[in-house]
């Protein structure tokens, strides 16, 4: 319920929202949790395993219970913490893990069966038969247990990612963080102040303490205004620093108050010269019997709801604690006019801070209330007493938020005075820790520590800082350890994973004594809250059960992220085209206009075939296009091949070193085929290289390997042959290049070239400058089809018009455009290789090119290619295949066996890499690799494809099926 006159948003506008379909009204500035408590909604969820009714425990991102689902369909977003979800008009949240309703959840039967469902029960229970593991047990367990569910649809929400840089990153904007940021910023440092809350100020917004004579929250707001005015400060509210990484890099998740085109979240990578961790501390619960009922909350959370949002989480509140700090809860509640039944303090010598009933040496030993607390049992020196109360504010002490200091393998140090772990110095290079995160537990100590730490950091960075620390409350923090309270009923530790004290003891009893083993055995500290409030208590119980101290027991490893981060945010920009951008050729639109289905080639899109009216299958189109090239003329865009311009006095020597064959002997205006090896002697890539001048070459690579070859050339030039004076640049995008292939290719070109060519001026493998309608370009007489063919290149801006004109001229001559299917058939008929053959495991020897590896010079791969194993006759070497029965087909990926042998791996003789139907020869053709292949010409082998269930008897033949002496290409 609301308390009049309380709350920083007491005058804010009303906001309507729904929870499980029921309408409520909250206030601008509320979190969903605050608004639910204001409406007396206490039951907000069901627990993971036992489906126990659960309420709101905390007022921050450590919340284990109050998780809701937002959005519908593809936008469904589960496991949102109601304690950090800012209320907005029309917000619609749903509870999770309950069916048919939150109040009546049939799976709550798990709670009745809990004696059989202790930690590790499924390891022991669901063992036989093995076939049931995935088929039966897992689906049942998954249905019964769980948090919120994903929609199963592709997320359509917008996410963003961004980089930021600064001198000093201050993490957390409580008293220490504000002082640190002010001190560093005033000294002149570039400062980023990041805080996960929507309003900066940390605990100052949740407490009633004064700072410098002002109400803490007002003081914080004034300092934030001051920081906002400084140009060297970036304030990042709603931003949780999620991880600390090498070299001052931090991950941070910003919850953008998104609507319309604004993203939901932005994932930041912040690079800071220095960082100051001011993450504060998290209050921990006490494990007493049935401590998980809605209405049992952290004492600090009760103060936050009261002081910040003007909400009393109950009509009659009781406090249960082992420290002084929690007494302030009673003081604040009484000041606000809320009834306080008692403060139960486990310490005998605790002193009251106000006019309330204090039960010294008392323990809460039981609770009642099915869907919400209505009574507690208190055991004290005077006996056992029942107290009517609908809210219990508990505090087992404070754990400094050490998480980020552990992200690079650091371990925290146990502090006996605080009964907590504190950060160990130097665990993150460049990070200092201040405030409560460093174990400073009073307001004054936090302010001072923030300022002093920033002074040290700013001085290190070369600035001259001044610290001006305001006065503030400086009550010492006093605590006596209290981890668990004996009594009947389960004493919950991890509320999110339903782990209780007995589970930890069972783990210890079954010898899972290491804290990491205990965690895995019991699931303590897993899932969305990662045990933020429960871990230290759980290991204290483990320490007790194993007879060790807490320091020796140690902590589990804190890893990033500190809070859950949507995969969508981390991968922002990498969905769809952001993951695989589309590279389009200059002929793309013309090809699509002609109805060509486009297929991916790396990031490129290339036409598969160009269908004509009346054709119903791709094969009909393909056959027609092959026929163009074999009999008239065809046009194909080959711009996707990598083109690298290579220049310099040592360009030829450089090519001799990267290619296994020789290029220094290549004459100007001539082209040569080149084979490139990896240093391990296997084939990397192939292509043609043209010599345009004495010191000027243009290399082509395959489409797929263009980037790899460029990187390789950079490597060889810089690392291995810096003595060679050569420079190169990728010019793939700069040139539009088209194959003009077929007996009528020269006739076509001469209809377009400004100066006609003939056999004498432009023989096979010639190249040079040409011009078309006054535009200078290049012409190469090369052939990937085996026909008299050219490749003509113009600057890319002329590509679209050149393609249209080439195709129009080809059509006038009885030919036309051809696509990848026809290109593939043409090259298989000629036995030309692609990366289907040079797939990374083959050598020059394997493809019959070993004599190309010149032994007159050193080159990349030369030495390793001569290794004995790579020249073994029994290696699988390239061969051609054709079916003995010309009506039968071949499949790529099939394996080859001796006729009559069992088609099993041990008898494997080779495999098929490329197949096609050859319209030219009238039957199927294949390329493949066969043991000792070149010496088995004419032999029959059995092609077996177990996947597609194909068996075809084949004849081994030379891989060049068509025009073996190459007369057609030479013209």
């Amino acid at each position, binding site marked *: 319920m609301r308390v009049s006159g309380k709350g920083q948003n007491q005058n804010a506008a009303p906001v309507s929202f729904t929870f499980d379909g029921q309408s409520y009204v909250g206030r601008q500035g509320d979190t969903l949790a605050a608004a639910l408590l204001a409406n007396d909604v206490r039951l907000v969820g069901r627990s993971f395993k036992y489906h126990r009714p659960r309420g709101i425990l905390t007022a921050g991102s450590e919340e284990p219970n109050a998780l809701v689902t937002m959005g519908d369909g593809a936008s469904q977003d589960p496991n949102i913490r109601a304690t950090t979800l800012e209320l907005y008009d029309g917000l619609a949240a749903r509870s999770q893990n309950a069916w048919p309703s939150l109040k009546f959840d049939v799976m709550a039967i798990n709670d009745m069966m809990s004696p059989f469902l202790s930690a590790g029960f499924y390891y022991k229970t669901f063992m036989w038969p093995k076939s049931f593991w995935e088929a039966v047990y897992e689906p049942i367990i998954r249905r019964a247990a769980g948090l919120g569910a994903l929609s199963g649809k592709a997320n359509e929400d917008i996410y963003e990612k961004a980089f930021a840089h600064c001198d000093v990153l201050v993490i957390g904007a409580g008293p220490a963080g504000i002082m640190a940021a002010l001190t560093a910023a005033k000294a002149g440092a570039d400062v980023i102040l990041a805080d996960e809350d929507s309003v900066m100020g940390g605990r100052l917004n949740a407490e009633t303490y004064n700072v410098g004579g002002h109400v803490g929250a007002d003081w914080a707001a004034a300092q934030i205004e001051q920081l906002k005015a400084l140009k060297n400060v970036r304030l990042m509210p709603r931003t949780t620093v999620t991880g600390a*990484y*090498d070299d001052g*890099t931090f991950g941070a998740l910003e919850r953008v108050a998104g609507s319309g085109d604004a993203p939901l979240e932005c994932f930041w990578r912040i*690079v800071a010269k220095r960082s100051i961790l001011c993450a504060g501390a998290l209050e921990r619960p006490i494990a007493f019997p049935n401590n998980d009922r809605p209405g049992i909350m952290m004492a600090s959370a009760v103060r936050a709801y009261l002081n910040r949002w003007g909400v009393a989480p109950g009509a009659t509140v009781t406090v249960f604690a082992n420290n002084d700090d929690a007494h302030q809860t009673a003081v604040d509640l009484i000041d606000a006019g809320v009834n306080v039944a008692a403060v139960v303090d486990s310490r005998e010598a605790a002193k009251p801070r106000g006019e309330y009933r204090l039960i010294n040496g008392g323990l809460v030993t039981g609770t009642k209330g099915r869907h919400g607390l209505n009574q507690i049992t208190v055991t004290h020196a005077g006996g056992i007493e029942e107290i009517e109360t609908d809210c219990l504010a508990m505090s087992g002490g404070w754990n400094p938020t050490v998480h980020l200091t552990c992200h690079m393998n650091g371990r925290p140090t146990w502090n006996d005075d605080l009964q907590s772990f504190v950060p160990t110095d130097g665990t993150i290079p460049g990070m200092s820790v201040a405030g409560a995160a460093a174990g400073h537990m009073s307001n004054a100590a936090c302010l001072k520590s923030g300022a002093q730490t920033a002074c040290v950091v700013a001085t290190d960075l070369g600035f001259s800082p001044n610290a001006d620390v305001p006065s503030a409350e400086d009550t010492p923090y006093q605590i006596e350890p209290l981890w668990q309270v004996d009594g009947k009923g389960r004493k919950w530790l991890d509320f999110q994973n339903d782990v209780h004290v007995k589970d930890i003891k069972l783990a210890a009893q079954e010898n899972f004594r290491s804290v990491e083993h205990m965690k895995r055995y019991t699931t303590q500290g897993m899932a969305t809250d990662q045990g933020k409030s429960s871990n230290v208590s759980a290991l204290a119980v483990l320490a007790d059960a194993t007879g060790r101290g807490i320091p020796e027991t140690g902590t589990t490893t804190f890893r990033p992220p500190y809070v859950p981060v949507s995969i969508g945010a981390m991968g922002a920009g990498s969905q769809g085209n952001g993951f695989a951008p589309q590279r389009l050729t200059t002929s793309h639109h013309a090809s699509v206009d002609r109805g060509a289905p486009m297929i991916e080639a790396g990031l490129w899109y290339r036409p598969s075939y160009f269908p004509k009216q009346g054709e119903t299958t791709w094969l009909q189109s393909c056959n027609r296009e092959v026929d163009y090239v074999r009999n008239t003329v065809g046009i194909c865009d080959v711009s996707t091949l990598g083109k690298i311009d290579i220049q310099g006095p040592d360009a030829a020597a450089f090519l001799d070193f990267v290619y296994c064959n020789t290029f220094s002997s290549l004459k100007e205006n001539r082209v040569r085929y080149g084979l490139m090896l990896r240093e391990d002697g296997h084939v990397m890539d192939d292509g043609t290289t043209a010599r345009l001048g004495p010191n000027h070459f243009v290399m082509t690579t395959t489409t797929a390997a263009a980037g790899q070859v460029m*990187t390789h050339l950079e*490597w060889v030039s810089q*690392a291995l042959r*810096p003595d060679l004076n050569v420079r190169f640049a990728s010019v793939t995008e700069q040139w539009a290049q088209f194959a003009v292939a077929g007996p009528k290719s020269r006739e076509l070109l001469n209809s377009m070239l400004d100066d006609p060519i003939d056999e004498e001026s432009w023989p096979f493998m010639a190249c040079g400058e040409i011009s078309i309608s006054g535009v200078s370009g290049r012409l190469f007489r090369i052939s990937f089809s085996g026909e008299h063919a050219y490749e003509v290149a113009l600057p890319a801006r002329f590509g679209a018009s050149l393609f249209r004109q080439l195709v129009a001229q080809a059509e006038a001559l009885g030919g036309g455009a051809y696509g990848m299917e026809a290109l593939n058939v043409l090259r298989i008929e000629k036995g030309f290789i692609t990366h289907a053959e040079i797939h990374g495991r083959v050598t020059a020897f394997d493809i019959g090119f070993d004599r190309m590896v010149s032994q007159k010079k050193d080159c990349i791969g030369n030495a*390793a290619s001569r*290794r004995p194993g790579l020249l073994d006759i029994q290696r699988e070497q390239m061969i051609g295949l054709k079916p003995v029965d010309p009506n039968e087909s071949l499949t790529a990926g099939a394996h080859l066996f001796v006729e009559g042998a069992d088609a099993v791996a041990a008898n494997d003789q080779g495999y098929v890499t490329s197949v096609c139907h050859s319209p030219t020869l009238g039957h199927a053709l294949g390329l493949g690799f066969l043991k000792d292949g070149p010496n088995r010409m004419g032999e029959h082998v059995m092609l077996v494809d177990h996947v597609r269930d194909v068996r075809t008897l084949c004849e081994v033949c030379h891989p060049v099926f068509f025009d073996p002496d190459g007369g057609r290409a030479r013209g």
Partner: protein
Amino acid sequence: MRLTCPICGERDRREFYYKGDAIELDRPNQDAGLAAWDDYLHNRDNSAGEIRDLWHHAAGCGAWLIVTRNTLTHAVSRCELVEKDTR
């Protein structure tokens, strides 16, 4: 992780492509024999401590770099061009 490219300055590691141990700079002579080539191609130490690695500033200037890094602390102590200024 941040690397300081001698040409471009300090950059996020996403701009760089990793190749492997800097032993690849010590390319054997063509006639060095099988054992030397086998070492060069395949054998690598797995050191706890300082190592020298090759990185390519692929999304930057294209420079190949030798990065000296401690595998225990992740600290990068040197980042130099593979290419000595020989021209």
